[in-house]
């Protein structure tokens, strides 16, 4: 394929480095680098090495089960799948146009969704990214963990936990349960917000907005502490795709129209309906990864890739419709000097701008009486097909179903956020490889840079299942003839130890 460093001319002559989390988790990722005799990177790839097959798991099920079932896709953003499925199946039950989903149901779903985005962003920034950002990429591996953050910055860690807890409470109050809730159904919801939950959420909302604003300020301070690093680390100019609000292009995470900007900020496409996603997007398959590579049809598989998620959304929208997040967005834009920011680490700042926006939306929506009174569901003439897009924490999420007369799902197609970002993540790996690896000795710190670039996208590669004590890194150096030369293991405590290469 087109990208430099994606495929080397003579891979058999190169030595291989693999960053391979050995887990049985769903869709787990592996990075491989091929180095020539001078230690220069000739090929770099992020692979997804397990077939997911979730769509086939859905086919044959009654459509009304789907919004609950799809939550098993993901342990960290099940609500996004719950709502995307519900929105798609709204069309199947005819809840459109004159029979549209009631305003009260939409209000509850929106509150649920922004609670989900808020808690997911808080988890990523405070618990996954902040150890790298606060301590540096070359710090001891043991320090690059939330527990070290908690020791060195206890108030930051505490706020992170409580922000996430608040988001989980929003989900519980609207979905009925903290996980695998049933609140959203095709055509609407099955509950409104109780007076008791409303009072609890309202009481803590101002504090959460202030902490969210503090998180934005922290992300900005980190960026300003080393602006060149943050701007250029893993920098990959890319098109940006996201939903925006129809008409004014405001940031919109629950429902909107699709917009695409070029990497330099020019509008390429605007106002496209999610119902036409198949005209807009196609997915390519490459033999070395189970994860597909989506691209814009009009530009072709070689050139049509794009980025989704916070960094794309914050720069793709025309403005953010809540005041403090909009001021934060303007600061973000100003810091980039009028250019579009494409550095992987700038994603963290953008993500915190969205965290603040989500919390502002939650606080504002709690004053909407529709959350506690009104119709629950609507329906109209039954349809055979339903499509919907939503902005999940990691980016645009598309669900598409066909349902037979027997009410069983006959076709299911899901394009999840991490899949949209497949090419962008691969390009980020290559950018870091070019920037840091060429001709240098391999160290744990260098390998961590690869992970930092991937982590900035917050990919959901490994959260669907888990096992006790099974998430090490296994790095093996091989000679050009495939003989293992050296091996480094990083165990569950983050400690690196040499290992017998013969055991690789």
């Amino acid at each position, binding site marked *: 394929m087109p990208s430099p460093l994606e495929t080397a001319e003579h891979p058999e002559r190169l030595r291989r480095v693999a*960053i391979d*989390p050995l887990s*049985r*988790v*769903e869709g*787990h*990722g592996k990075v491989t680098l091929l180095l020539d005799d001078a230690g220069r990177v000739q090929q770099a790839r992020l692979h997804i090495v397990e077939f*997911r097959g*979730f769509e086939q*798991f859905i086919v044959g099920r009654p459509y009304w089960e789907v919004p609950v*079932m799809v939550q*098993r896709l993901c*342990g*960290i953003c*099940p609500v996004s799948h719950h709502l995307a499925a519900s929105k798609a199946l709204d069309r199947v039950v005819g809840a459109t146009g004159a029979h549209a989903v009631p305003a009260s149901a939409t209000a509850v779903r929106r509150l649920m969704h922004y609670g989900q985005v808020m808690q997911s962003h808080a*988890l*990523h920034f*405070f*618990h*996954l990214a902040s150890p790298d950002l606060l301590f540096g990429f070359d710090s001891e*591996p043991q320090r*690059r*963990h*939330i*527990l070290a953050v*908690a*020791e060195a910055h*206890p108030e930051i*860690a505490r706020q*992170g*936990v*409580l922000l*996430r*807890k608040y988001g*989980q*409470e929003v989900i519980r109050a609207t979905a009925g349960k903290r*996980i*695998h809730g049933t609140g959203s159904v095709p055509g609407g919801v099955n509950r409104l917000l109780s007076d008791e939950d409303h009072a*609890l959420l309202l009481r*803590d909302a101002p504090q959460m907005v202030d902490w969210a604003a503090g998180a934005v300020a922290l992300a900005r301070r980190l960026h300003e502490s080393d602006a060149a690093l943050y701007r250029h680390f893993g920098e990959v100019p890319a098109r940006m795709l996201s939903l925006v609000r129809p008409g004014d292009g405001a940031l919109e995470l629950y429902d909107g129209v699709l917009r695409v900007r070029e990497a330099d900020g020019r509008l390429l496409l605007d106002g496209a309906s999610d119902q036409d996603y198949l005209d807009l997007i196609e997915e390519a398959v490459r033999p070395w990864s189970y994860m597909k590579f989506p691209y814009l049809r009009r530009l072709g598989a070689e050139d049509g890739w794009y980025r989704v998620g916070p960094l794309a959304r914050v720069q793709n929208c025309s403005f953010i419709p809540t005041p403090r997040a909009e001021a934060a967005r303007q600061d973000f834009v100003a810091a980039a000097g009028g250019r579009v920011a494409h550095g992987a680490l700038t994603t963290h700042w953008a993500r915190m701008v969205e965290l603040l926006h989500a919390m502002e939306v939650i606080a504002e929506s709690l004053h909407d009486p529709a959350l506690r009174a009104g119709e629950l569901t609507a329906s109209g003439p039954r349809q055979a097909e339903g499509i919907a897009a939503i902005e999940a924490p990691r980016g645009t999420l598309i669900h598409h179903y066909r349902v037979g007369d027997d009410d069983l799902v006959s076709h299911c197609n899901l394009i999840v956020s991490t899949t949209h970002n497949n090419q962008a993540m691969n390009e980020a790996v290559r950018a870091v490889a070019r920037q840091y690896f060429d001709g240098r000795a391999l160290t744990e710190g260098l390998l961590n840079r690869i*992970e930092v670039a*991937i*982590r900035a996208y917050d*990919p*959901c*590669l*490994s*959260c*669907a*299942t*888990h*096992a*006790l*004590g*099974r*998430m090490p890194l296994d790095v093996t150096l091989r000679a050009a003839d495939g003989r293992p030369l050296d091996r480094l293991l*990083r165990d*569950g*405590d*983050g400690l690196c130890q040499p290992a017998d290469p013969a055991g690789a």
Partner: protein
Amino acid sequence: MSAMPAPLLVIGWGNLARGDDALGPLCLERLAAALPPDRRAAVELLVEHQLAPEHALDLAGRARVLFVDCDAALAQPIAARALQPQRDASAFSHALSPAALLQVYQQLHGAAPPPATLLALRGERFGLGEPPSAAGLAALDAGVAWALAWLAGGAAAA
């Protein structure tokens, strides 16, 4: 955001759609059915998809905590051990281990977490849409019996 918590907390986690990964949640389902009515107020059963940092808040105010999960590396059907707060790290995962969760508790509260035990149930099949394996179900039976004894104060970590 809640009233006085029950003194005993049991957390079971896993993906119900992935074979033996469901053993933790299934164990709690069985415990809910088996608990004598006069014991139910003293026990909270919490089913999760995975452990995350905010679960540290669920540990507060408990007398004892039991974590229940499947374990693909276990030789015997079940194993139980006392847990201590401990750091760990993961590459791309969003999930915490139970020991790391105890460490988060310690950092957040500035105090030792309540006594905690991990009950591991042997799992061997994790395919999407698969039911639990025969070995997994046998481990589940043994695990439920062990957990009921733990709830009654009679089981000790091995």
